[in-house]
């Protein structure tokens, strides 16, 4: 009789670490090709449109990079939180908190113009951190489940923003439920082309900084230790609660910065549809990157391509744009399933049957 058995690996080979996310994404694309043909489009045409449309002209490249920036922020936010096993599903809400802070500071006329951009960035980080702090405190003080609170906090934040935009914060000029446009001095400088704003390189630098923080500092080490084994970490002298709160603060600040980039560099005002699911996409991106901050960079770029490319694909082939959402979900699942093979190996054994 032939037996299939999962056997724990001693170490994961390096090539597998890199091959896994690529294979996971390929598997997701193959699975989703059924939907493309279901929608009546030739798969190869639709997929080539999905990808090629994102870097055919310098404009496309800019747009892809600008789209990747918030995904980079939320991917980093999730990577830090999940490392500590703080289940922050609330990057979406923390992003909106950051966006509100940036939008509010950006339209203060009494502040000197030159201070606006740095203050918006700081304010957004603080607001995001604060919105993550509450679930973290509820978890460490009252043992309230972090998954549930961060999820519900997304809804609270969204309705809160919508209420403000319908009420006291409504744009007086247009009467639309958007915040007033920020000062010209508050708009992030455009570095290249027409859309590539300051926030894009900052998010890239942040990825390197977070890698350094997680890999080269005591803070990062404590976060990893608590995530890997809280009891052992406590025994080694780390305050588990303090580390969890730190991870939550860093995570929330990173997600908040995504909001600063969207308000300061893209929209110049707060709208309730500011985030097209960036917070949830961050979970997919961080997982594909295996929670490695540097791995978040290619993962964010890939999903920026999918999100932007889906529009072009939809226009040209009629495949609904929501294919991008399905690919995200499937890629997350193929990645977690595929990760099994990094930890286990499949063993085929022959057993002599008795009797």
């Amino acid at each position, binding site marked *: 009789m032939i037996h299939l*058995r999962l056997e724990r690996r001693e170490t994961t080979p390096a090539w597998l670490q890199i091959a896994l996310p690529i294979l996971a994404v390929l598997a997701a694309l193959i699975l989703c090709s059924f939907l493309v043909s279901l929608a009546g489009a030739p798969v190869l045409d639709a997929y080539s449109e999905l990808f090629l449309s994102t870097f055919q002209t310098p404009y496309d490249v800019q747009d892809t990079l600008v789209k990747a920036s918030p995904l980079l922020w939320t991917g980093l936010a999730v990577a830090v939180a999940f490392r500590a096993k703080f289940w922050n599903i609330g990057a979406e809400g923390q992003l909106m908190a950051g966006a509100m802070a940036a939008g509010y500071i950006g339209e203060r006329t009494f502040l000197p113009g030159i201070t606006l951009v740095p203050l918006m960035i700081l304010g957004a980080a603080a607001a995001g951190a604060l919105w993550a702090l509450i679930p973290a405190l509820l978890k460490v003080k009252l043992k309230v489940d972090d998954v549930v609170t961060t999820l519900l906090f997304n809804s609270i934040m969204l309705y809160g923003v919508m209420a403000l935009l319908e009420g006291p914060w409504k744009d007086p000029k247009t009467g639309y439920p958007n915040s007033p446009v920020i000062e010209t001095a508050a708009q992030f400088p455009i570095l290249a082309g027409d859309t590539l704003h300051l926030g894009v390189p900052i998010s890239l630098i942040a990825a390197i900084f977070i890698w350094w923080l997680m890999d080269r500092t005591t803070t990062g080490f404590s976060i990893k230790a608590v995530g890997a084994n809280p009891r052992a970490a406590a025994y080694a002298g780390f305050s588990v609660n303090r580390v969890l709160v730190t991870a939550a603060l860093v995570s929330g600040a990173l997600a908040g910065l995504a909001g600063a980039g969207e308000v300061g560099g893209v929209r110049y005002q707060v709208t309730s549809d500011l985030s097209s699911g960036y917070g949830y996409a961050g979970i997919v991106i961080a997982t594909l990157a295996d929670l490695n901050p540097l791995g978040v960079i290619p993962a964010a770029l890939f999903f920026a391509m999918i999100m932007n490319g889906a529009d072009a694909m939809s226009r040209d082939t009629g495949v609904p744009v929501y294919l991008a959402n399905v690919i995200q979900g*499937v890629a997350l699942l193929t990645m*977690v399933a595929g990760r099994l093979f990094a930890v286990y190996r499949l063993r085929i054994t022959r057993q002599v049957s008795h009797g």
Partner: protein
Amino acid sequence: MAETIFHLLDIGFFAALLRIATPLLLATMGELIAERSGVLNLGIEGTMLLGAMTGFTAAYFTGNLWLGVVAALATGALIGLLMALLTVVLGVSQHVSGIGTTLLTTGLAFFLYRMIFGQPAVPPNVVAFAPLPLPVLSSIPILGPIVFNQTAITYLALLSVPLTWFILHRTRWGLNLRTVGENPRAADTAGVSVWSMRIQALVISGALMGLGGSYLTIAQFNAFTFGVISGRGWVCIALVVFGQWLPWRCAGGVLLFAMIEALQLRLQANNTLNIPYEVFLMLPFVMTILAMALVSRNAHAPASLLIPFRKEER
């Protein structure tokens, strides 16, 4: 103020409360069954949405609401099977599998709806389930018009609570399920298949969630919209914690939540202060977190929740 609130509490209010509670009761019982077996089903939000979508679509094309119900149940059961493949058979992170399942099914609901119906100016609709007054019972004063003049799915939802309690706490199957959630090693030794129990639990859980979702599109309302679930699934996860993993307490939590929701709808309608209606929408979510903060310290989740079971590993 007290007088206005009292004024709001008429028969219509309590009937609305039960309508709001219906999808939540079904999905909460579903989540409860999954968690009792040791699996956190975070696929709930997407399962409800896809159930709402397929239930509506089946009812729309066949003209038969009950086929809509069947489609929603089947959709939910299939998604439960997917969750089972990931969390039970492969034993990967329940958090990530659940979020992934929700992302996938949400995307799928949007994708399929757009593919089938396009972008019509007026969303297609069905003739929704009509209230089915139960003979004799519906003529009981006060209670009759509130409880016994509802749609068939609401009766199913109300029945799901005692049924869940009975099955979980009064049958051998329920005992096995709870043991699998508390101490899978012991259950395994006693000859109960941990995997089989968990797979069954997830399939039932998904079916109930799908049915709950479809109530919104073929009974309470008559069309599918992208925001039809908007966080209801996440609330159910909180309600299971609030209800301490016990069917009756969970149902109590659902009714409490539904009451706040019904109250905020009434306040919205009688909005004399011109408060943006989103403030009212936010209210139930804030209350849910407050309620969880109150009970969480003493909450005892099933001991093996979130822990995959592999027979060969000790």
